[in-house]
């Protein structure tokens, strides 16, 4: 790669990284590099300073306590996919991580970098929104915690201040009566989501007592599907009731007031038409109605 000239700095700690960010306005953090480096290679990003956070131990690791899975920002998709604890506590997390990109991408890309980059095609943004996850941010004046659904503000735009970094992503452990699934139509080149639908349903026998549904890939930021959730809650889940509920996704997409993304691979119209199909697939898998 022939990036424009930049200065390389290595942060030794979270505090060090925050200090370097404050001292160097416009600097970019380097985690897995899978989004930043392509941009620099095309010279679309030309940061004067690149701060490598890869050596900060405090940003690593996955810990489960008090019903919460706390994932360090530097955890790679592969680490999350392969963690037996995560698989146990929240199978959707592991499964979504395992469906990102390809092995090389999963071995380098991090959950923190993924959220901070806020690509509309990100799997994490959609899945973590449905799961009600939060991110913890550290800045010069302290830390704060914010829901992923609020953190991602628009395509490639987040609530991060210039001098803040993501330290942790916290995800609830799924309860015994909760089922969660993610279905995506993957772009055949990158495996980024063309359309992704994530669902979490709380079940009482065959009856859904609560549902959390988010779609992404087709929208600048994940859209919470309140109409679909409402149609699912209190309903006995069958092929028909699921089809009925997911058909209400168009209401949610209009209510969100966002532009539907279209590109050379998949038009906006097609994406909005198949989004309910992906949500339906996720629900059928979640409750075991899909045959493989």
């Amino acid at each position, binding site marked *: *790669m*022939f990036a*424009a*000239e930049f200065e390389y700095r290595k942060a030794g700690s979270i505090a060090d990284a925050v200090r370097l960010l404050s001292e160097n306005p416009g600097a970019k953090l380097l985690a897995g590099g899978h989004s930043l480096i*392509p941009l620099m290679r*095309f*010279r679309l990003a030309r940061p004067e300073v690149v701060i490598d956070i890869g050596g900060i131990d405090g940003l690593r690791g996955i810990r489960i306590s008090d019903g919460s899975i706390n994932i360090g920002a530097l955890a790679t998709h592969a680490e999350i*996919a392969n963690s037996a604890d995560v698989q146990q506590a929240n199978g959707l997390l592991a*499964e*979504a991580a*395992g*469906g990102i990109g*390809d*092995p090389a991408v999963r071995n380098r890309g991090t959950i923190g970098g993924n959220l901070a980059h806020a690509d509309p095609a990100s799997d994490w943004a959609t899945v973590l929104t449905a799961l009600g996850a939060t991110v913890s941010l550290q800045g010069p004046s302290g830390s704060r915690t914010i829901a992923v659904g609020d953190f991602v503000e628009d395509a490639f735009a987040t609530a991060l201040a210039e001098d803040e970094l993501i330290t942790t992503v916290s995800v609830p452990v799924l309860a015994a009566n909760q089922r969660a699934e*993610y*279905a*995506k*139509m*993957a*772009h*055949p*080149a*990158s*495996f*980024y989501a063309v359309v992704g639908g994530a669902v979490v349903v709380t079940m009482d026998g065959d009856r859904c007592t609560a549902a959390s549904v988010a779609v992404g890939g087709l929208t600048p930021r994940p859209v919470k599907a309140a109409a679909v959730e409402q149609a699912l809650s209190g309903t006995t889940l069958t*092929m*028909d009731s*699921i*089809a009925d509920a997911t058909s209400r996704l168009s209401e949610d997409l209009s209510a969100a007031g966002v532009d539907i993304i279209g590109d*050379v*691979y*998949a*038009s906006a119209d*097609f994406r909005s*038409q*198949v989004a309910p*199909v*992906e949500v*339906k*697939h996720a629900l*059928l*898998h979640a409750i075991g*109605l*899909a*045959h*493989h």
Partner: protein
Amino acid sequence: MTTRIFGSGIRRREDPRLITGQASYTDDIKLTGMVHAAILRSPHAHARINGINTDAAKSAAGVLAVYTGADIEGVLNPIPCAWAIPDSDLKAVAYPAIASGVVRYVGDAVAVVVAQNRYQAEDALELIEVDYEPLPAIINPEAALGDGAPQLHEDAPNNQAFHWVAAGGDTDAAFADAAVTVSETIRQQKLIPNPMETRSAIASWSPAMGELTLWNTTQNPHIARFVTCLVTGVAEHKIRVIAPEVGGGFGAKIAVYPWEMITAFCSMQLGVPVKWTETRTENYLATTHGRDHVEYVEMAANADGKVTAVRSVVYAGMGAYLSTAAPGIPTILHGLMYSGPYDIANIKADVYGVFTNSTPVEAYRGAGRPEATFLLERLMDKVGDAVGIDSVEVRRRNLIEPFDNNRDVAIGITYDSGNYSNALDQLLGHIGYDRFRHDQEHEREHGTFRGVGIACYCEICGLGPSQVAGAVGFGGGLWESATVRIYATGKVNVFIGTSPHGQGEETTFAQIVADEIGVDVDDVEVIHGDTDTTPMGWGTYGSRTTVVGGAAVALTMRKLRDKARVIAAHLLEADEADIEYADGQFFVRGAPDRAQSIQDIALQANVAWNLPEGIEPGMEASTYYDPPNFSYPFGAHAAIVSVDPDNGHITLDRYVAVDDCGPQINPMVVEGQVHGGVVQGAGQALWEGAVYDDNGQLLTGSMMDYAIPRAHLVPDIEVHSTVTPSPHNPLGVKGIGETGTIASTAAIYSAVMDALKPIGVTSLDMPLTPERVWTAIQAAGYTGNGHGHSHGHDHGHDHGHGHNH
């Protein structure tokens, strides 16, 4: 020796260095004093250049020189096209290495910067100011030929590069008399070849010696030397071209490009070695593409499905300029193959080569033959539907009867040998065709749509007789050469003119040598890719290296065997007629103890203390082999797919190949070639396509957008074979490098159409994206059975999980 080394699936000796990163590619080479070039490329598909200001770039840090089109004028000749199709009114338009006045595609070179390092060169590119006056662009080859289209070249009115017609029989009469006619419009989309190694060159000009050395990632170093001589004016014997490890080509490394000529120019101007290596982004814009046809094709048949005629009108996009072999692809390698494996009495191919504002095209694996196979198989399916017979039955009624020595086809070429129905029968057995049809019926009732597609093919390769090459306008010969030297120690070097780059001939040619003269295969080393050390040859493309170059090796070994026999007779004091040969031993008939090994004889030949009279010292021979005919591999492939009507997602469930390339020197290498070829063809059917916007900008400009096939999207490919030797080849071999690609696009496409038949979908453009499939399903009025079959989305990942795809 009990098992023959010929036919044994030994491991490729190339692989250890390749898979451990020890191979040395052009970009790995570092010369003392070497500097670096970067090329400024046009961001416009078509524009007039009103001015270029290079002042700031010239004074930037580390910059040694900046050159534009004005600097090369009169110094660097235009890039020649080497395939002037006769009787086609071919317009050999000027193809300057650096554009001057007008740029004609996004990627056309505008200037080059040479700097101490590549970063400085890239920085300086940003400082060059070009005053472009954008002109309207045209991308679609049919539209480019139409009225009012933007014009690319003054010398090529209506953007017509050539117009070529080939015909046999009376096609018009056959169509007039036909009980059934079917037609189709086929878009053979533009494809990007994507070799793992991008293009790269290092030029080193020695002013004192007047010699140019060019390291170049090429499939054909001797052709590269020849063309370099024409472009630079350096005499051919003063040019050395070296193809180090070459990381894949697929046709895209046949051409001699402007880029290595620019690199040579820079070195000759500056007197220091200059390296240029393409970035992947540049590769997408500036390395040749493949295919790009708009085709109108028709087939005529009797009421029982016997095909009587096929005809086409093809608009073949050439891109902005004519690349080295480009005109030969939609014509000689495409139009002449309209009979395929079928007995068709009347054939007409009507092909327009058309300039468009896009990256020039060149051979891409299969080159012309995948397109021919695709249209025949597509039309064959339609004839079957029209007369109401199954897709297998319609093929069976049309296949040429088995023959083992020469069969003329209507278009005027002669196939060498074939047993097409046998390949088809084998295939049907492997897939369990009848069972599949039975199950399919049942599944459809439950809203599951599976389909099977069959592609029978016969292709032309082993290019080819040089006399024919001349007659069809190819600017060179198509023979191959080999020199084999057996040293005093019994070890063997084989020097070949052709230039493998991943296909495995360092292994398979050693097997030929070992088989012919009984040395251990590990005692043989194959040398290629350097014009100073190898005999002249025409390179690797058109599945010709084993067929033509391998034959040259085998014939050379037979010469050496004859010489060894004479020496053996002398040493054994026996009559030459009494000397027999088996497994590396020359012995007296009836007295196997009285023997000389090939190693003994090689020692004697090399020291020459006691040679028979009239026998020259040394154990070396050469062959220049010009094949009497092309070779015609054939086979039958089947794909089984499922289509999810909910979201248009296609899953490739099974792929079975039966290929006949004659005797196999190394079945494992054959299998590898089939695997790679099949997957590349699957790419065209399902995922790949270079998409441009109306302004000629490439929208699929990176690997994030252009989908080359991924391993986990492809099932295990089941590879089978039949063996029908070529009667004219010394080894009987026919070529296997392209068969997979030639058959698989057609087989997979046909399978998808078969799956969608009950829904009423009749035509789709490739690649078969979910959106295209889903939209067609909707347009056909399918509403589904309401219930959830849910195989069909990428649920996750590429490792074992219940519902991934």
